[in-house]
């Protein structure tokens, strides 16, 4: 299936992309992270990230569905 990934902050700098559409067979968000981390060697470990699907925080063990927008959220620092 195809899913969309958006990148922000340190994740955007390490991938050089603000978003991309990927083809994946990963069943969980955790597996999506591992797959992309093999490619990009992200600057942040999974434990330092949160994950959002379609603009909502969800658990890394949740499943992905076709056309989901997935964002690995680096530590936030607003304010």
């Amino acid at each position, binding site marked *: 299936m195809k899913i969309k990934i958006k990148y922000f902050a340190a994740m955007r700098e390490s991938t050089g992309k603000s978003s991309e559409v990927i083809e994946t067979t990963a069943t969980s968000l955790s597996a999506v992270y591992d797959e992309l981390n093999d490619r990009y060697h992200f600057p942040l470990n999974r434990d330092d990230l949160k994950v959002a699907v379609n603009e909502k925080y969800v658990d890394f063990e949740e499943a992905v569905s076709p056309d989901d927008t997935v964002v690995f959220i680096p530590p936030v620092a*607003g*304010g």
Partner: protein
Amino acid sequence: MFAITENKIREKQLGDDRAGAVVIFEGLVRNHNDGKKVTCLEYQAYIEMAEKVGQEILNETFNKFDIIDAACIHRVGMLQIGDAAVWIKVLSAHRDEAYQASKYIIDEVKSRVPIWKKEHYVDQEPEWVACHRCASHEEHHHSHEAVT
């Protein structure tokens, strides 16, 4: 009303004849952080989600505290020393509720809204401010943040 803006924050007018107390909070860009001299700050947001999470926080605030109105604006882009990064205004009949609601909003914004900041320094490479540092700051009041 929760909004993200790329421009200088323009305060929203909130008025209500029942209001007896107004508390305004502004988070400014400081000239120092964690012992380093800061020259400017770059804020980036996942805007669509930031606005949703921000509105959720305001909804929670209305449920938790007896307030009349509340608004929050967060700026993104390149900010200079002294610029306001975030502005929060709360109206209530009595002042305790306005103070409490104001603190709740800024605490939640800082911990949940998907906004990031990159600090630019006088003497070294810029870096994204990481949350484990923010978190330890929040707990122990170290000076780990450029905006508090």
